[in-house]
């Protein structure tokens, strides 16, 4: 019987249980961070249980770490008392249970979904879990990765396994080449705008088709990252030469690399017939997307006008966002930029934004934060002089972390500001109470900063 990439990786991890019922799966790698781990560690202490595989557990500090004032290199730089307590708790827990921690100031520290691939911890065929919904990100390299809850974290700590019911297979077939100025972010936003916030619920999703071959690993990570907003708990891309080239030589990549690659090559979908459902998208004529409302499906091509109010949810979104039906996307006033997050906080994202901002300045009244996804991204960007471009344009160049993607610590977008953001969620209050988020690609966000409103960024690429 034809099986999918997902089937193959899943089946390989089953310890017990039949398809259709909860199955016990082995967890190859457990990523943890300061926000969702304190209770599970406490649970271990309360019950006197052990952490089974500290060697398969890797910790970082990302959600709550401040990204300014710089540099944030020791705990003393964390002024927010609660954030500090959470970070100190993780430090202690990692010491007590023997878990490796990419600590504040450590060269490896960063957003968990940025550092996993970058360090080569994320590998094809691995089953990876993390107490964070965007764990699907790691599937871009052919891993089976998904977010878990706090009780599940404690369960993985003790047993190195997790109970799951196998979802069905959804193939997303991407064809055509992206126009200059259009990115993976636009593909994923277009899919969610078209099919809604739950179209992939109950499915493991695979992106496949000729477009994928064009995409770098960093772009693929954007796809598998953000598709969670379409309801996919897990998303994968078949590992190919691009994947193998990307992982080669990374810190935690296998030493006998050719043998590993030989094993990884078996992880593929035999035939599209193996999918339970297929969605097609031709990306050739795709325009850059911008979200206008309060969930990621409330998004449109940048040359569109805002839709009529169809229901209560939309009415509420209009009110919160202070926008009017019929208004053109390009007339939304932008007074804040956020460039960063696990969706678009990697080096290529910063490069794309810097390309647009080079030689320009932010429009009057626009404030911008650039937050690299990890310390390694920050250093690499600085080597390329990107920090100088951002600063010259009037942006604040900050330390790595999740920052205003979820605004847990003082990194918040002020109430009432319209923020063009490279993140993944535009829920009410997500970037700060009353903050109005507009999701878009790094290039679109950068261009919006220059004009103080969105513009079709493709025009920048025509001039080239």
């Amino acid at each position: 019987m034809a099986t999918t990439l997902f089937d193959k990786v899943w089946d390989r991890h089953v310890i017990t249980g039949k398809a259709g019922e909860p199955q016990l799966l082995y967890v190859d790698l457990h990523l943890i961070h300061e926000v969702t781990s304190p209770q599970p560690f406490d649970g271990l202490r309360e019950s006197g249980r052990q952490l089974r595989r500290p060697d398969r557990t890797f910790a970082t500090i990302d959600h709550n770490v401040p990204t300014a004032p710089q540099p944030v290199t020791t705990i003393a730089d964390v002024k927010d008392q609660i954030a500090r307590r959470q970070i100190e708790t993780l430090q202690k827990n990692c010491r007590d249970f023997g878990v490796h921690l990419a600590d504040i100031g450590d060269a490896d520290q960063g957003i968990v979904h940025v550092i996993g691939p970058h360090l080569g911890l994320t590998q094809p065929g691995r089953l990876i879990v993390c107490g964070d919904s965007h764990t699907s990100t790691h599937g871009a390299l052919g891993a089976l990765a998904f977010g878990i809850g706090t009780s599940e974290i404690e369960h993985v700590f003790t047993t190195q396994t997790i109970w799951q019911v196998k979802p069905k297979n959804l193939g997303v077939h991407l064809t055509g080449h992206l126009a200059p100025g259009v990115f993976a972010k636009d593909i994923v936003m277009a899919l969610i705008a078209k099919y809604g916030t739950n179209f992939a619920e109950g499915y493991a999703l695979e992106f496949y088709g000729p477009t994928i071959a064009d995409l770098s690993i960093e772009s693929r990570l954007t796809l598998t990252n953000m598709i969670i907003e379409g309801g996919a708990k897990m998303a994968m891309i078949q590992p190919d030469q691009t994947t193998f080239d990307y992982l080669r030589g990374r810190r935690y990549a296998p030493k006998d690399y050719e043998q590993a690659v030989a094993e990884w090559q078996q992880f593929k979908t035999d035939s599209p017939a193996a999918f339970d459902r297929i969605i097609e998208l031709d990306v050739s004529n795709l325009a850059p997307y911008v979200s206008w409302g309060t969930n990621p499906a409330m998004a449109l091509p940048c040359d569109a006008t805002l839709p009529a109010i169809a229901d209560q949810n939309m009415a509420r979104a209009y009110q919160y966002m202070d926008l009017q039906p019929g208004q053109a996307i390009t007339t939304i006033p932008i007074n804040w930029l956020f460039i960063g997050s696990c969706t678009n906080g990697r080096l290529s994202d910063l490069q794309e934004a810097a390309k647009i901002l080079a030689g320009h300045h932010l429009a009057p009244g626009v404030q911008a934060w650039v937050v690299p996804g990890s310390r390694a991204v920050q250093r690499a960007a600085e080597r390329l002089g990107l920090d100088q471009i951002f600063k010259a344009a009037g942006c604040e160049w900050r330390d790595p972390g999740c920052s205003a993607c979820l605004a847990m610590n003082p990194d918040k977008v002020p109430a009432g500001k319209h923020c063009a953001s490279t993140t993944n969620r535009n829920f009410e209050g997500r970037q700060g109470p009353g903050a109005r988020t507009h999701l878009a690609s790094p290039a679109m966000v950068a261009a919006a900063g220059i004009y103080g409103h969105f513009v079709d960024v493709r025009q920048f690429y025509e001039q080239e």
Partner: protein
Amino acid sequence: MEKFTVHQGTPMPIMNDDIDTDQLLPKQFLKRLTKRGYGDVLFYEWRYQADGVTPQENFILNEPARQQASILITGDNFGIGSSREHAVWALRDWGFKAIIAGSFGPILYMNCTKNGVLPIELEQAARETLSELPPTAKVTIDLVHQTVKCGALSWKFTINPAWKEKFLKGEDDIDQTMKFADQIAAYEAQMSPYQ
């Protein structure tokens, strides 16, 4: 985990679709280090005025007649968004024993099964009927027979037998899994070096 067999309680209708976990429990409360005590911040943004303490008068969760409600009736796609289990702790700590929605975000659904909050999927017509019941209406959820009843009204629901079993027994996941300790060890012994 507490056992769940039959529960009788009163309804709390909040019929919005797509209620996400940021709405259920905003992230500022994720900084806490405990598993209990989240009841008073459930629906924080909708529930309080800008000062964070004065109740919003027109929000149903604040209505005196609804303070004993234990069954949340809601829309489609309940609990999407961030995986925070705190959202379920908040629902539980407020006093909800069951949530009746059109559908659930998959992570929240799993989190419900670990905290003794029964997630039930019912079609829209049923939920609309339930949402119109008076605050004192007694709704009975019978997990053994998989029914929701109120007076003469009655609906069937489906649930995966394994989750049902867990609710009925009130078992801790880890205890259950440790029955498979030998198989886990055997699996580890035969793993690929690249896993």
